[in-house]
């Protein structure tokens, strides 16, 4: 087709939209060389740019309104996840148990208390509902730069192991630590480590 800018090239917005949204169209050769299509594309691109500005404005106009979110979250009444049931020996008279969710929350809490450590995902692998079955604990950790990782991993392993010994009857065979995220150091040193 001859490209004559004074004549409508016959391309519709749909045809250009594919090119705009996916960066490719079967018609790319024409679109890239047709002044009319290029002019329309420029219009579509500035529309998309204005759209993002508008969304930014929308968000900014909401302002920082923590009380709105407080209300939202209070209404939700989020319940923690129980997970599997872990038996505890309560003697002959009692049937005691704790939930997997409670144990994982405890692991998080022990890990979070170490400087520079924030626990991510935590998994109990093994038959936790069978008393005495070997269980391995797998923990994802986000660490702050500046804490030597082997030392941190060892401190975390032993703290988690000790706490599980005290608070549960799980037969902990291993505690696996994986550093899955690194956070930049803080400007100040609120953890008391310059």
């Amino acid at each position, binding site marked *: 087709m001859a490209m004559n800018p004074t004549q409508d090239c016959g391309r519709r917005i749909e045809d250009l939209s594919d090119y705009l949204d996916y960066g490719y169209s079967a018609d790319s050769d024409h679109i890239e060389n047709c002044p009319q299509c290029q002019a329309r594309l420029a219009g579509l691109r500035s529309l998309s740019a204005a759209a993002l*500005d508008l969304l930014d404005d929308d968000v900014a106009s909401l302002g920082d309104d923590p009380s709105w979110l407080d209300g939202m979250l209070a209404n939700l009444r989020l319940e923690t996840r129980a997970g599997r049931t872990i038996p505890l020996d309560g003697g002959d008279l009692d049937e005691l148990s704790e939930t997997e969710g409670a144990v994982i929350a405890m692991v998080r809490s022990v890990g979070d208390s170490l400087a520079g450590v924030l626990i991510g995902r935590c998994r109990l692998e093994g038959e936790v509902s069978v008393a005495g079955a070997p269980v391995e604990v797998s923990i994802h950790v986000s660490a702050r730069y500046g804490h030597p990782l082997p030392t941190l991993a060892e401190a975390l392993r032993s703290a988690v192991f000790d706490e599980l010994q005290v608070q549960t009857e799980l037969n902990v065979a291993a505690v696996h630590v994986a550093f899955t995220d690194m956070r930049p150091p803080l400007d100040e040193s609120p953890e008391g480590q310059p």
Partner: protein
Amino acid sequence: MKIPQDFSDKLAEAPDEVLAERAGDGDVAAFEMLARRHGSLMRAYARRLARSFDEADDVVQEALLTAWKDIASVQDGTAVKAWLMRIVAHRAIDTGRRRKTHHNLDDQPDPADSKPTPEQSAVAGSARRALNDALSRLPEEQRRCWVLKEFGGQSYGEIAEALGISETSVRGRLARARTTLVKEMEEWR
């Protein structure tokens, strides 16, 4: 129990994927941090999709509940923001569907409450205001397609699935919306 300052600092600086992992394990504080981080965006997006601000807040509320229930299934925690946006979109569309079933408002023009509010009219920059006004005059079905595409970044296939229409219809509605909006913005210039 009072949350120690150090711990809330750690949560506040944690990336989305770590918060999503914790939330998936049942950590309410981590989920709330995610909600605070992306709440305004969810709310703004819901307002563009819903008929009224009250309806938008209901949509966000439902979206947060759905997110809490499903967050353990999130595979890519770095994409949690886009995932939250998709949930908002689905909840908004469901709400619209329920409204139509109840009131049989199909094909009726938008009620007055989708007109720009004072705070939106204060939108800086006339190009954005022109777009804002043009957008509020679009038929709802076109506006939704456009908002899902431009604000939500969703593909034609995702939009089609969410709206329960064909991809061809999505392309058509989007093209009509874009044609109108480009024209109105050019007239403004």
